[in-house]
């Protein structure tokens, strides 16, 4: 899927706003879920699904498609919004999030929902999966790229660094990892719970090409994704500085909205801020 003009960021910004509206509506209807980390990732996921990735919602198994692995599986709502808005399924399905019998599980299930590449939700595993997928595609001569979105707190998982070593060792350059660096995790600020810095140096030391960007500036995101594609011989990490709850002032940079859905009043405030009608 491509925007009307490939670098038309205002069109993409509109899509990102629409994504946030759908995320908040589905979370409100579900009555639970992860608001903050879905909103912080909204611009990145919009850039991928509406501009960068080669994929076909009408043919979700197209072998040459680019793949997206949501390693921070708790941001499922933002993935579901992207899949619905790009046409993988009817948008009305978003109202079933987290309900018994719904394909929209609390964390993504690939067995239940086409468009989800692999089930995630247990942190730390996505980058290893992305490595295997990228190496497997490369081995078969497929041109596909693999994108893997990680949470910042998630890199506290040791397996992430095992995978970081593997990607570098095998020169997995058809892989691009992105960290949604919003600085908060369930128990508080990452810096206080378990220090992450110096994050750029760590990834550089593991043999990655690293790009630091503002994860809410659409032009910067697109530019970084393009540059990552041009890097050969090593994997690329995009360290995207973001704000948890981005787009709605009452949720922004608030740790308490990590795993809480908006109330009716909060939803109304949020939709008004995002300029949704009604």
């Amino acid at each position, binding site marked *: 899927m491509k925007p009307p003009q490939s670098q038309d960021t205002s069109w993409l910004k509109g899509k990102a706003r629409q994504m946030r509206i759908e995320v908040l509506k589905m979370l409100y209807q579900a009555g639970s879920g992860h608001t903050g980390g879905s909103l912080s990732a909204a611009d990145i996921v919009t850039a991928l699904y509406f501009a960068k990735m080669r994929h076909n919602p009408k043919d979700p198994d197209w072998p040459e498609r680019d793949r997206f692995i949501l390693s921070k599986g708790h941001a499922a709502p933002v993935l579901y919004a992207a899949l619905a808005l790009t046409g993988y399924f009817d948008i009305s399905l978003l109202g079933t999030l987290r309900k018994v019998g719904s394909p929209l599980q609390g964390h993504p*299930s690939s067995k239940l929902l086409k468009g989800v590449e692999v*089930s995630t939700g247990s942190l730390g595993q996505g980058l*290893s999966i992305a490595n*295997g997928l990228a190496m497997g595609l490369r081995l078969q001569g497929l041109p596909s790229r693999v994108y893997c979105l990680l949470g910042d707190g998630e890199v506290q998982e040791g397996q992430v660094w095992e995978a970081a070593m593997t990607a570098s060792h095998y020169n997995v350059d058809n892989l691009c990892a992105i960290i949604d660096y919003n600085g908060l995790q369930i128990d508080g600020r990452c810096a206080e719970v378990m220090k992450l810095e110096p994050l750029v140096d760590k990834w550089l030391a593991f043999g990655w090409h690293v790009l630091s960007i503002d994860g809410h500036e659409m032009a910067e995101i697109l530019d970084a994704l393009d540059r990552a594609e041009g890097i050969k011989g090593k994997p690329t990490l995009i360290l995207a500085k973001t704000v948890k709850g981005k787009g709605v002032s009452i949720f922004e940079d608030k740790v308490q909205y990590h795993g809480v859905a908006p109330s009716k009043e909060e939803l109304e405030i949020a939709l008004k801020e995002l300029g949704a009608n009604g």
Partner: protein
Amino acid sequence: MANRPAEEELRKTLSGQGVETFAGKAIATRDAYGAALYRLGMENPKIVVLDADLSCSTKTIRFAQAFPERFFNVGISEQDMVCTAGGLALAGLIPFASTFAVFETGRAWEQVRQTIAYSSLNVKLAATHSGITVGEDGASHQALEDIALMRVIPNMTILVPADGFEAEQFVRLAAEFEGPVYIRLGRAKTEAVMPADYKAVIGKAYTFSKGRDVCIIATGTMVSESLKASEILSQKGISVGVVNMSTIKPFDGETFLKAIEGCRLVVSAEEHSVIGGLGGAIAEFLSERAPMRLIRIGTTDTFGCSGTPSELMKTFRLTAGDIATSVLTNLG
């Protein structure tokens, strides 16, 4: 898939040499695995293999040397290995991921549960060094709970070959099977027990003999011990049947019920804890479907220890003589 010239050359050189078979040969199941994997690699370019720095011990080295482009050593990182295998399966390949059973099922348990089984990815977890016959390395390296750990995971198929011949057939069957499979392999040489015309089927137990008094349901290395125990007991006038329950999950209840029909005593035998493994599976099945007396031969809620494999079989009372004694005691 593009083959490197060397790989193509190798394929040509080795094709038409006939299928190596371990029927009737005493061999460690890990050796049979290594050989079978290599053959499979020649035939099917979709086979890829992962290891975590143990390729000489797990015997994936033979595949690694022949098909370096399809071999991924991830270093000492079993959790990464399991999920990387998952990714390779997502790319449409058939990965075999190998390390010691302790690490494959223990260290990487949650990766197996979440990434492999929950998404039902086509990954083959082929783990060596199961049971106490690991020997001198001791408890840290002796998996006595791996079957239990895999058995509680939905979507998991569990295969425990009794000898090299069955192991090589399981490797091929696992590759043909769509979905996660755990194959439990051993380090020490295992006597050949399966007949030359044996054709392994996933989910189908093999009945050596039907007994009138006792039925021993065994798996893995304990099949040969059970066959010997049945001879000891028959000399004492006790009619003993022996079944090789080489697929632990799904459990072949049909063969099991036929085999125990008319018996007074059922015995489970495994080189694994009596908790949660074959003995556990049988206890669960029996108590619901056909309540009767069961004794479970295996390690009894304990860790292993160092020693030679044969010394340890005696120490942990897993020999044919131990099985026979236990049957005699319990028959009263």
